[in-house]
């Protein structure tokens, strides 16, 4: 092929490529759609420990204070409520949930708030990714039968 023929071939390929490219451009321009997604907030809570061993406490005596750290693993600021169950031992041995008290700062047993069987707000505006300490303490009623007692203390975040 002579020089003129080569030149014509190259030009023709280039034009074809440009024509094809134009086609895609036209197609792409004709098929673009704007899409967007809104992700809602989510709650999450975690506790540093799942147990609170108050140890051996004599009848009519108070336990030592125990601290549990509550963390907000959710995606937004949250409030935390607290509630509990009655203390249960073997057989009919039991005593009321209110013998356990809680507070947001360390202090005497008398200064804390008695736990109840219904959720009560305990922590306010815990930042997402943040945490707060819950100070727990209990007292054994006078005359209570010697036994091992258990109680569930439930922390709940609400978003």
């Amino acid at each position, binding site marked *: 092929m002579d020089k003129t023929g080569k030149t014509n071939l190259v030009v023709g390929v280039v034009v074809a490529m440009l024509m094809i490219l134009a086609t895609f451009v036209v197609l792409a321009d004709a098929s673009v759609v704007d899409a967007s997604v809104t992700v809602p907030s989510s709650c999450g809570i975690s506790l540093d420990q799942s*147990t*609170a061993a108050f*140890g051996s406490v004599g009848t009519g005596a108070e336990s030592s204070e125990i601290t549990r750290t509550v963390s907000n693993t959710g995606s937004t600021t949250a409030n935390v409520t607290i509630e509990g169950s009655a203390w249960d031992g073997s057989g009919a041995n039991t005593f009321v949930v209110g013998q356990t008290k809680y507070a947001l700062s360390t202090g005497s047993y008398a200064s804390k708030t008695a736990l109840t069987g219904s959720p009560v707000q305990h922590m306010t505006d815990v930042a997402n990714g943040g945490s707060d300490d819950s100070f727990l303490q209990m007292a054994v009623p006078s005359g209570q039968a010697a036994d091992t*007692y258990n109680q569930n203390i439930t922390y709940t975040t609400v978003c």
Partner: protein
Amino acid sequence: MIIVLVICILPVLADSGVVVGTVIVVNATCDSNKTSCGIYPNCTDLTTLDGLYGDLYCSDGNVVQIYREYYCTGTTYDYNISEQIQQNCTYGCVDETCKSYTGGGINVNDIIDFELTPREIKYPSNIFPSSPEETVTIIFPSFMINNIGKDSYFQITYSCYNDDNCMNGWCGASDNNFQILQGDSKAINLICTIPENIKYSEQYTLKVLVTNGADRQKSLQATLITADEKTILQVLASRERNEKIKNTVYIVGGFIGLVILLWWISKIP
């Protein structure tokens, strides 16, 4: 071709975590020592209970009060008692106070302890009245009053009595009011005037009344017995002889008088 992509995310509205509390309830006792005794939480410091209790009272001549010393018996406590002298008294104790030697006019204890020695004494036979008409004053050998009690007394009276009656003419005492301290002794010099027509077989009583100006008194008695029987018979015989002599004198004298009177009448012209 249009592609639409849809992403769905479900929201988590609440989340919970549970802490399980455990406690071992034991019947707690305190330290079981003097400073911490009992059942928790009622631990008692027994040193705060040690001390004096009750009212003052007299004991062994002193003013005393009960002292309690507490001790722990494990979960309970008890105490030992002792008398603690609050005042040592020199002159004894009465009405929860020490008595002072003031010379009289103070109260006495309900218990009066005296001892009278001897408890009987005989008439000195040689001073018996020689006739029923005569009276005689008998001075007896001294009686001793020994204060063996715990108090001092400040007024002692004593008299002669016959059947608990202080008879006119019988009563007489010297040194009728004197003081006798605790542990001291005093001599009583008793003078009894025996009236006429005494009965030699009777016994007479020396009665000592211990008083202290108030209504407290106690009587002690010592029996004054008559002479022995032999002496009594001798005295009776002597009396009888005297009576006979007297009667004889009266009769002879009367007869002589009558003779003289008749002689005088016969001489009248």
